[in-house]
């Protein structure tokens, strides 16, 4: 009962303080929302880059050619051996005959097929898609070690270039998110410090009448929480509008780019923003008010 009364009091006080210092708190909400928005936009862009790289990388198949001595039946069964291996997402078997057909069609006619049908120089082959591009080199090495395989064709360098690019964007993304998170922390901290400074007399009075630090913090924490939550909601709405109505239409014009649909991640962003906003408000308020409590 007592605790409930206090919580009600803190909520009332926090909301009242928010109204009372509305210019400063609105500024804090805007600034924090801007930081959250930039962080969110960057996270989405990095996710899009990753998706694009993954999609392009996935099109980059490994092709293996079986030894000449592998007969038709063994060649088809070899697909099961491949599927049992790690990091193999899918395999497509191309028989010698199909291979020759493709070859002759690519060169412009059936004449080639007809001339080589009886003495087909093409080997049985498999087109392999890996599940994780990071492991492509190991997979290629494993394939090369298999006696049934005569040759492995894989563009490891291309894959590595993709991976490097992805790692760089990831690194820049994480660094930017950390920097923006720190900036956001400073903004909230400054705002709360200013409002707390303006109310240091009030804090002194509360201490004088026997308020514990925990009690005094209550209202300030609520205020910080409100700032954090409002910033999170504001940033969420802005991110949705910015991404869905401005970025995606532009990106969809470039066929090479794959983009993550907002509808598939909206819940992650909403939860992430709300949790981050709340934590920001609470944790930063907690530490900012600390020095005003030493009376």
């Amino acid at each position, binding site marked *: 009962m007592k605790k409930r009364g206090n919580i009600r009091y803190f909520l009332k006080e926090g909301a009242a303080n928010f109204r009372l210092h509305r210019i400063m708190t609105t500024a804090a909400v805007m600034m924090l929302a801007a930081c959250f928005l930039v962080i969110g936009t960057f996270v989405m862009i990095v996710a899009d880059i990753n998706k694009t790289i993954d999609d392009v990388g996935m099109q980059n198949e490994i092709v293996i050619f079986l030894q000449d001595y592998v007969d038709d039946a063994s060649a088809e069964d070899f697909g099961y051996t491949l599927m049992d291996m790690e990091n193999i997402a899918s395999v497509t078997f191309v028989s010698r005959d199909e291979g020759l057909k493709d070859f002759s069609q690519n060169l412009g006619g059936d004449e080639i097929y007809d001339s080589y049908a009886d003495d087909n120089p093409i080997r049985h082959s498999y087109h392999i898609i890996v599940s994780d591009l990071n492991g492509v080199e190991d997979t290629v090495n494993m394939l090369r070690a298999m006696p049934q395989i005569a040759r492995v064709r894989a563009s490891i360098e291309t894959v590595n270039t993709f991976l490097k690019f992805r790692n760089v964007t990831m690194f820049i993304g994480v660094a930017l998110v950390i920097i923006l998170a720190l900036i956001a922390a400073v903004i909230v901290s400054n705002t709360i410090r200013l409002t707390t400074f303006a109310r240091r007399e009030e804090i*002194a*009075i509360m201490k004088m009448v026997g*308020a514990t630090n925990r009690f005094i913090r209550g209202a300030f924490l609520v205020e910080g929480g409100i700032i954090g939550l409002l910033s999170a909601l504001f940033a969420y709405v802005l991110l949705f509008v910015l991404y869905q109505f401005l970025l995606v239409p532009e990106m969809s014009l470039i066929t090479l780019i794959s983009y993550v649909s907002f509808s598939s991640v909206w819940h992650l962003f909403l939860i992430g923003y709300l949790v981050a906003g709340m934590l920001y408000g609470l944790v930063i308020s907690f530490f900012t008010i600390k020095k005003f409590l030493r009376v």
Partner: protein
Amino acid sequence: MIQLTGVSKTYNGYIKALRSVDLTVEDGEFVFIIGPSGAGKSTLLKILTAEVEPTAGTAEVNGYSLVGLKASDKPYLRRTMGVVFQDFRLIDKKTVYENVALAIRVTGAGNREIREKVDSVLKIVGLSHKAKRKPPELSGGEQQRVAIARALVNSPKLIIADEPTGNLDPERTKETMRLFNQINRMGTTVVVITHEKSVVNDMAKRVVYLENGCILRDATGGYNQ
């Protein structure tokens, strides 16, 4: 009860605000602490409210030893006393009711208890009809009565008033001192720190005279007794 033995306070290593002060105030007493500016009255108040710690000696207030008192225990000591200041120290944005209620709310009291006690003390100080007003809407005397109500609301054993009449006209001064007298008759120990001779002379109470950080006189009577 206040028990100071050999209490000294030195600031920055060389400014001696109090020099070996011995003072005992029994429960239910009414004591004036008087003296010129710089006598050490404010330092004494700060020691009693645990804002500063004595440099030497032992000090005890309402069962709490003030030497080495933990920060987490200070709120509980302060709840055993009410402090009234010359400048009232009210929160302007809160109503009279909320200002008084704050002192009891911090103890974790429930809403019903808060309502009952606040109504009761506002009646004692004669401000029930102004419970919804905010301090800036009240006169100096009324604001001081709000501060007294706030000091009283936790039914403290001790009330310390620091120059409580400094901002009041003679009529409001008498009214305020009558209120302190009434509170004292209800069993609360009252310590009034002042330098106003008329306030002290009007009441035949114990007077502790402080000068240069030392108690020079401790007797019942007026300012110059």
